[in-house]
């Protein structure tokens, strides 16, 4: 900092300065101890020295100062004013100590004061001074002065403003500090090698990458030395058994200083090394521990493989397309379902390729392939979920569902619904056929009922004629013709009468189909009471005891229900045994139905007839013993079925019979 040019003859200068000042400008006063010739030469030398000194002082940026024995300023050269802007007169008489605002180190001041109290020379004492230009750093050196008797008479010295140098130095130090802090702060190793591959600097974290090699992580260590030490400790699996080759490769890479090296260390860690050339031919190396990243990468790869395996094993096809309409994921089934070439199975392939492939095969029908592709791609881009069916040339039907993905793109699933479609179609056809059958059946039933009604009604007229005139014959001619005639007429009358009954029954039966089944709330309790009342005479004659309990209210046709109970009770009376007849009627809830039972202790029915008895005009017994047309139970079945129930019989021949039937309980509840 201090200019070298400042070394000069202090002794000579000092002498001449003092003399000059002491005698002012009195050049006329000649030196005391000189002869004329010597004086001439002495004066000449003195002038020369003085001139030299003046020149030097003018050139120098330093100033000159003097203090007395009390360290008060007695003199400050003009340079001081020029540099500091402080007029020297204002300082003459004040102590140097008063000038010191601060020192670089806090104890410098005390040391310096002690120094000058001891009258010792000092050099390069730096202190801060408040000046018109603000706080400035002065550097000063001084030498004590003594008189001829050796008494201390003050100091003489020079001073200079070194503020810029100090501040530059401070900045440099700060910059260095920042640099160190910066490289220490980064979470990666940073190594700087010079052009000779010697380590210049590295941050502390670097030690983690060279465990146990702290002693080598010092400036000056050649890079190769580090590599060998590392390999020697077995850290580099790559180098095992091929040390020299590896060193050569590694040094080569180091010198190229391009790209990234990813290294798996023997301790399991993954390191990523990035090397770059510096402007002065060195190399800067950055090392990052990417073990966690690598682990995640591996976990992700495992997971991806797992998912892919899952996807490849589902029966649906699947493709995922990203926001750029490129294939992002897919499964085998997707390729298989559309017979895409094997080469299509790559992530990143434009989705358009798949559509074009299908279009070119003509699977979208005839027409411009490009137009078809455009339309399909537009459909696929639709941000709304969609579902279309695609029919392949072999008849396979594929249902394609598209759903947008949250981050753009969409996922599509492909389901082979050929079989599903076939079954659905078959079911639909079946249902249609069934409905047709039902309609036919309904029509045929209606027609039958109509036929039965009309037939029986219209048959009544002629039959009545037959019957009436046979009876008229009987009435007017009995005993007037011969006995055979009486008998014949008797059979004719009987047959006509029986036929009348059958026709009547048939009419009743057909009426059940044509009317009623309606919807009034009917209390079965009351219905049974009515039926029993209607059968009063028969019940009294047979001595039957009819009991019933807890019968519900149902919805139906009151008249038909009365007929139902009446027929069943009547049936029990007709087929009673020798035992006193007991008829019991009860009901119990069975799910959505009420199950009714009418049981007796009569003659019973052989199980093989359990079905036949419900058919119209079917009789199991001799007419003379058990009269009747055989319509009663057929009517019962019709009434029950018209009410949505079913009827059946359980019986033990000789012990009794129970007729069971159900009526819907839902309708009952609705009405109640």
């Amino acid at each position, binding site marked *: 900092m201090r200019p070298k040019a400042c070394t000069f003859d202090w002794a000579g200068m000092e002498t001449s300065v003092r003399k000059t000042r002491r005698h002012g400008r009195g050049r006329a006063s000649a030196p005391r101890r000189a002869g004329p010739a010597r004086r001439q030469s002495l004066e000449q030398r003195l002038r020369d020295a003085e001139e030299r000194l003046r020149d030097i002082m003018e050139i120098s940026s330093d100033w000159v100062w003097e203090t007395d024995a009390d360290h008060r300023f007695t003199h400050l050269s003009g340079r001081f004013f020029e540099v500091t802007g402080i007029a020297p007169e204002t300082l003459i008489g004040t102590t140097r100590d008063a000038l010191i605002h601060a020192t670089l180190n806090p104890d410098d001041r005390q040391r310096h004061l002690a120094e000058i109290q001891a009258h010792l020379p000092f050099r390069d004492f730096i202190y801060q001074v408040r000046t018109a230009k603000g706080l400035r750093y002065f550097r000063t050196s001084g030498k004590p002065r003594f008189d001829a008797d050796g008494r201390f008479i003050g100091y003489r010295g020079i001073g200079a403003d070194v503020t810029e140098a100090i501040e530059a130095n401070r900045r440099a130090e700060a910059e260095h500090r920042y640099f160190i802090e910066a490289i220490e702060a980064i979470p990666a190793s940073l190594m700087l090698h010079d052009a000779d591959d010697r380590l210049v600097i590295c941050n502390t974290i670097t030690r983690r990458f060279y465990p146990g090699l702290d002693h080598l992580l010092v400036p000056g260590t050649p890079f190769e030395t580090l590599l060998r030490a590392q390999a020697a400790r077995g850290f580099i699996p790559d180098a095992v058994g091929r040390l020299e080759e590896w060193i050569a490769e590694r040094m080569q890479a180091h010198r190229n200083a391009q790209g990234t090296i990813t290294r798996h260390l023997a301790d399991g860690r993954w390191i990523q090394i990035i090397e770059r050339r510096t402007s002065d031919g060195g190399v800067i190396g950055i090392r990052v521990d990417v073990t966690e990243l690598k682990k995640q990468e591996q976990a992700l790869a495992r997971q991806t493989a797992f998912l892919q395996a899952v996807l490849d094993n589902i029966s649906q096809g699947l493709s995922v397309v990203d926001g750029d309409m490129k294939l992002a994921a897919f499964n085998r089934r997707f390729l298989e379902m559309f017979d895409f070439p094997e080469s299509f199975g790559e992530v990143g392939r434009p989705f358009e390729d798949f559509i074009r492939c299908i279009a070119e095969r003509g699977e979208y029908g005839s027409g411009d392939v490009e137009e078809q592709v455009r339309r399909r791609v537009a459909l696929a881009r639709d941000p709304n979920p969609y579902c279309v069916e695609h029919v392949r040339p072999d008849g396979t039907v594929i249902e394609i569902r598209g759903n947008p993905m949250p981050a753009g793109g969409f996922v599509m699933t492909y389901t082979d619904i050929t079989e599903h479609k076939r079954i659905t179609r078959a079911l639909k056809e079946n249902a249609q056929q069934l409905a047709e059958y039902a309609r036919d059946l309904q029509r045929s039933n209606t027609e039958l009922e109509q036929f039965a009604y009309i037939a029986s*009604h219209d048959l*009544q*007229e002629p*039959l*009545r*004629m037959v*019957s*009436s*005139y046979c*009876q*008229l014959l009987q*009435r007017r001619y009995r005993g007037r013709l011969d006995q055979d005639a009486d008998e014949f007429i008797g059979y004719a009358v009987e047959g006509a*009468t029986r036929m*009348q009954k059958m026709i009547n029954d048939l009419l009743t039966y057909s009426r059940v189909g044509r009317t009623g089944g309606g919807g009034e709330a009917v209390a079965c309790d009351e219905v049974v009471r009515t039926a029993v009342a209607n059968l009063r005479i028969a019940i009294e004659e047979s001595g039957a005891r009819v009991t019933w309990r807890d019968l519900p209210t149902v919805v139906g046709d009151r008249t038909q229900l009365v007929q139902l109970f009446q027929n069943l009770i009547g049936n029990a009376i007709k087929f009673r045994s020798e035992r006193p007849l007991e008829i019991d009627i009860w009901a119990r809830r069975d799910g959505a139905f009420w199950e009714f039972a009418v049981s007796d202790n009569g003659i019973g029915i052989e199980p093989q007839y359990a079905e036949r008895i419900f058919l119209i005009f079917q009789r199991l017994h001799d007419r003379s013993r058990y009269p009747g047309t055989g319509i009663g139970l057929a009517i019962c079945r019709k009434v029950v079925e018209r009410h949505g129930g079913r009827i059946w019989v359980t019986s033990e021949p000789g012990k009794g019979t129970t007729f069971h039937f159900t009526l819907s309980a839902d309708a009952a509840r609705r009405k109640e």
Partner: protein
Amino acid sequence: MGIQGADRPIEILLVEDNAGDARLTQEALKEGKVRNNLYVARDGGEALAFLRQRDGYAGVPRPDLVLLDLNLPRKDGREVLAEMKQDPSLQTIPVVVLTTSEAEQDILRTYQLNANCYITKPMDLDKFMMIVRSIEDFWLTIVQLPPRMERV
């Protein structure tokens, strides 16, 4: 015997397309105790012509009682009944509907048309005989009929 006058036979119009039925009624009335003249109309048109003494029925007597079957060819019994009851000159003649129908609807409709009574023809001859006698008894001996009005 009848309140209409003992010496005059009762005039009965039977509207019946079935000759067998007509004969049966005739036989039944024959067995009865009231002297009567039975006229038979084969369909509704004929019946109304008779009642109004038109189309060859000029001079026939005004019936005291009409026995009307419902199911007739062409104009049926219901129409005959309706026209009679709307005709001031015929509406006072008692009409006994005598039919094979047991249908509630027929019964209701017939009374709505102001029939005087509705009887289902029984299948049994004895019952039929009894019914015809009952009609005879009731309408021709018990009931007070409106005074005979001579036609205008």
